[in-house]
């Protein structure tokens, strides 16, 4: 049986992902080092972050090779967090504007 020994994959693939994570981390560090600002900075940070997170979950945590039922059970619920993020971003902005209007001279 193929599943008898669990998740077994060539070492090569781990080494490649390892190298890739190093490169992506270096890139995100360079974003700060070169003082990139504004939307360029934020989009680069988010891109590198999501790529790193994706590779860790997909390869190191073996999600690529898991069954679809488990993938859905683990990966779908966090999507609901986007609602929380959106609500709290709106709320934070509102509080900021209220503070500017009410508490600053």
């Amino acid at each position, binding site marked *: 049986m193929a599943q008898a*020994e*669990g*998740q*077994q*994959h060539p*070492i090569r693939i*781990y*080494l490649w*992902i*390892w190298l890739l*994570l*190093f490169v992506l*981390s270096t890139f*995100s*560090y360079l*974003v*700060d*080092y070169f*003082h990139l600002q504004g939307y360029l*900075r*934020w989009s680069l*940070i*988010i891109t*590198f*972050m999501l790529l*790193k*997170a994706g590779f*860790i*979950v997909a*390869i*190191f*945590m*073996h999600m690529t090779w*898991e*069954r679809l*039922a*488990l993938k859905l*059970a*683990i990966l779908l*619920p*966090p999507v609901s*967090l986007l609602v*929380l*993020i959106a609500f*709290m*971003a709106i*709320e*934070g*902005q509102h*509080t*900021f504007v209220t*503070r*500017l209007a009410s*508490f*600053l001279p």
Partner: protein
Amino acid sequence: MVHDAHAATAIPGWQGVKADYSGDKQAFPVPWGKAMMWIFLLSDTFIFTCFLVGYMNVRLSTTDPWPLASEVFSLHVAGHTLPLLLIAIMTFILITSSGTMAMAVNYGYRRDRVRTTALLVATAVLGASFVGMQAFEWTKLIVEEGIRPWGNPLGAAQFGSAFFMITGFHGAHVSAGVIYLLVTAWRVWSGFYDRKGTYETVEVAGLYWHFVDLVWVFIFAFFYLW
């Protein structure tokens, strides 16, 4: 029709509760330890997201300037000021430990007891050095910069509370992971998993460790780089 028989005849007491909840069904045909670890990590995802969202909320709503992480976390090396140097080193250490962990899982499934133990211990040592650097970073911030959870001389008071809460919780996870890995390493070395007949537990420990690295990816992006 085993399930129906279970439902029909009520077993008294806790045995009945167990029989009802187990129901002779298995939703995910993976080792139970792995399914449970994934579900725990899912709940941990929600906890860490709540912290990061809380941080986003206070940072958006404060009218005081937010301290510049790039400057707060800079190190002075040989007369040069390098932004975020310590944090970058910590990031690379954690990625390296994730790599050694992935290799440990792989050698575990190959039943290579010596290499698996060595890689697990290496992962734990890297994790411990990460915690050590974090202790250094905290000391520097508290003693030299005067940053407290309720205020700091650099700007928004929320900076300290968000920083200590988020990195403290992550550091606690790393510390617990180091202990977890050392226990697993000892069990691999003593032949516990050979007697058990499976090395799946090493993979489950690996899931936890990779998650700790995963959380750091988000903390690094949102707290240190943003």
